[in-house]
């Protein structure tokens, strides 16, 4: 790729090599809305930077000559998704590194081990500990449910029928509640 010169905006959906302002605005709207719902709370202040990083990545892709298929909004959103996930992970690694100095590394196993220690009234942690105790199929279904997936969406992701997913969610939530009750935790 050679050095590029300033390029005029060709307008919506015209010509490879740039993103029109209208399209950038549409993408910005989509990304802002999704990031607002998905962004971890401790990264709230980074939301706009996450969106900007993603949009900039899209500009790079269009500038590097990716052509026809890049016209599809879903493709652009997928590019943005990868970028946002990369940035979220990087930020979280940094922040978690500070936490781990105190807590040690966290994993499903670590969560189980913590469970044998005296119960602390920290609900988010207790929920995760109890999720780690569920059977795998129930855990998967309940996690998606708590993430906000509908039964149809979860069924698609888990490649099960909706009835099976609803059953797993029901039983999983029941188990989760029992586990929390045993811990003396009321969500």
């Amino acid at each position, binding site marked *: 790729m050679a*050095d*590029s010169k*300033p*390029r005029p*905006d060709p307008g919506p959906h015209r010509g490879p090599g740039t*993103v029109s*302002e209208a399209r*950038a605005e549409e993408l910005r709207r*989509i990304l802002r*809305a*999704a990031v607002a719902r*998905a962004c*971890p*709370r401790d990264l709230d202040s980074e939301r706009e930077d996450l969106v900007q*990083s993603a949009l*900039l990545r899209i*500009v790079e892709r269009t500038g590097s000559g990716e052509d026809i298929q890049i016209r599809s909004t879903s493709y652009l*959103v997928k590019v943005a*998704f*990868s970028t*946002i996930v*990369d940035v979220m992970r*990087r930020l*979280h*690694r940094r922040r*978690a*590194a500070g*936490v781990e100095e105190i807590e040690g*590394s966290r*994993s*499903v196993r*670590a969560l*189980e081990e913590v469970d044998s220690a005296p119960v602390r009234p920290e*609900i*988010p942690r207790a*929920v*995760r500990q109890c999720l*780690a*105790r569920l*059977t*795998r*199929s129930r855990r998967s279904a309940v*996690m*998606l*449910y*708590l*993430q*906000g997936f*509908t*039964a149809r969406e*979860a069924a698609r992701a*888990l*490649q099960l029928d909706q009835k099976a997913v*609803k059953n797993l969610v*029901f039983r999983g*939530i029941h*188990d989760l*509640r029992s586990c929390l*009750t045993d811990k003396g935790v009321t*969500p």
Partner: protein
Amino acid sequence: MSDGRITPELVRRLREAYASAPAGTASGPCGDPEEIWQAVQGGLQPARMADLLDHALACTACDRAFVLARELSRDPAIAPAADTERPPVSIRRSLVTRRWAGGALGVVAAAAVAVLALRRPPPVEEPPFREPPSDSIVALPGTDHLPRERFLLRWSAGPPGTRYSLWVATPELRELYSKPRLEVPEHLVPSSALEGVPPGQEILWRVEARLPDDRRLSSPAFRTRVE
């Protein structure tokens, strides 16, 4: 929560608690974002999907990646047939009521047995491997604002042999300049590329590094004011 019913309020509180987990990272490597995207679309083997979710239980960023993929997939601009289905618990509520009211004690007993019998040890013990924390690219001090005649962008260096690609754009995301295959972690952007940028305006730039082992690292977007 003691009456045995799964109420919307209980679900709301569980979701709140679930989303409030402090930042954490799992001991194993994160899945490729592409995999998570595919997983949400139903394009991944169920066993692999379960692996990703188990990892996400301890990794906040991956957990949120699932939510993000779902949210992006739902946008009407991307998925015109938006899924407007209600969450399963609302459907479940009536089912719960029916079952309990019907005195289906066997179901309760079976569930209790299942909890005890099927409670397994945690599914995957990840190797004690963590990506090095130095896998990010940062802008070096002094790049907050630069004269357009000497617009020298500088960033942290990778290992010897690393190649960098640089992209510069306006805040409206119009590409101003790009330069691939740079061998040094700095580049002088020609003033001609900044012709249309008024004094005092910020531009965005980012770097992608290809490491000698062929891994790629991407920087976040940096901002520099053009003087």
